[in-house]
């Protein structure tokens, strides 16, 4: 009975977590907040002591993006995995990596194993943050106890890692797309301004559009200025349209 209640509570909490994370994805997305929530929930919902999320930067180096424990020795434990460790292996292979007893893996990861045991951890698991064929980083889970996380915990952990990946990819895509959108609007506005300036010149100097454009472009070139900037000044009268020539 008690077991059932505990498991229901956990299920509810898990469901709540996914809803919370999904909500963040839709509304004003705050990457830092999102990742922090994620690692906190990992520690709460899975049978682990600490969790950390590492992402690869543009040069491929793993950076700690969020950790359940900010204490220096714990953070360092994540950070040094740039050289060796379960996270690095996980990131390189795109597959889960684990150690049921870190003391047995001093050959595999000499520096990491020493540091982890010094910090009081006996087992570790790394789950890939991966979307199709691309790996973005790893979710790192530490435990003071021995052994592997249960299958259920591993799949929950992986699901949380997947949600994190989707959120990050979406945010990255959105940022890139928004940058291009601004560029598009800028280009459209610039073009319109240039056309308007052509009209102003054409009317003030009684010339056709081709001649008007030639004069505009000539001024821009001679003064080493952007066409749209010159156009704006013709419109406001800062540049005297009548004084423009095509040479």
């Amino acid at each position, binding site marked *: 009975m008690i077991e059932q209640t505990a498991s229901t509570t956990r299920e509810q909490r898990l469901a709540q977590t996914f809803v919370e994370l999904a909500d963040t994805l839709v509304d004003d997305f705050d990457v830092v907040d999102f990742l922090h929530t994620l690692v906190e929930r990992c520690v709460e919902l899975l049978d682990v002591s600490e969790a950390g999320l590492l992402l690869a930067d543009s040069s491929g180096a793993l950076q700690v993006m969020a950790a359940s424990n900010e204490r220096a020795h714990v953070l360092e434990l994540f950070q040094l995995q740039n050289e060796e460790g379960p996270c690095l292996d996980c990131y390189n292979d795109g597959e889960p990596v684990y150690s049921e007893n870190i003391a047995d893996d001093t050959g595999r990861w000499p520096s990491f194993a020493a540091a982890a045991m010094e910090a009081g951890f006996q087992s570790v698991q790394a789950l890939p943050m991966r979307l199709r064929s691309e790996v973005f980083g790893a979710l790192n889970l530490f435990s003071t106890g021995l052994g592997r996380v249960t299958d259920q915990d591993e799949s929950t952990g992986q699901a949380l890692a997947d949600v994190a990946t989707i959120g990050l990819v979406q945010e990255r895509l*959105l940022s890139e*797309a*928004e940058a*291009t*959108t*601004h*560029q*598009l*609007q*800028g*280009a*459209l*506005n*610039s*073009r*319109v301004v240039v*056309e*308007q*300036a*052509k*009209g*102003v*010149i*054409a*009317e*003030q100097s009684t010339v056709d*559009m081709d001649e008007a454009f030639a004069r505009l472009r000539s001024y821009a070139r001679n003064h080493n200025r*952007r*066409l*749209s900037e010159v156009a704006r000044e013709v*419109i406001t009268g800062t540049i005297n349209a009548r004084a423009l020539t095509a040479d």
Partner: protein
Amino acid sequence: MARERRQRVLSAIANSDGTSPVTEHLCLAAVDLAGVTGAAISLMSGADTEATVWATDGIRNVEELQYTLGEGPGIDAHHTGNSVLVPDLRQVTAWPAFAPSAMEAGVTATFCFPLQIGAAGIGTINLYRDEAGPLDRDQLADSVMLADVATQVVLGLQAESPPEELHQLLSQRPDWHWPVHQATGMVAVQLHVELPEALLRLRAHAYANDRRLGDVAADVVARRLRLEADA
């Protein structure tokens, strides 16, 4: 499910009859998927800046009507970031200038989808149909997905352009809209008014004389028409 839909939409774009610009393919695919009579893609920025990138045969007039009149379901879709679905223009009270003119041009239903990335909108894809009636569920979902694809295509094209320059495929029909801005400049000088006022005067003249804004602009640019100060 979404993946299948995306495949279907992409196939429709690839298989459409257009001879080359991808913008034409997008419009023809929209017509095919939604079962409508015509489609147009227009870019918009700010209040008065728009450029119709492509319109299927016979649709250009109706599409431009929105920009001539400064009102319409596409403009609303762009401003609100939500699609505007009008299964029957006869039943609406919105757009008192656009609706009757559109109907006169043979359009009874229109469905306008914003081209949107996050909070930023770059324009719309507008569908027009001669007969009244809603889009069915699949047509609607396909159209939304097509708008999504169109947004990515447009942004993709622009990403390849140098900054400050509209991609060639996005400014392919210079005769359609640049004369409006040229005419705006000319009228601003002629009437000694600011540019927004000049555009308003051009629009008012077009509406009052039941002419397309583009045609009025062409006349102004060719000096066949000069707006009077008290027009």
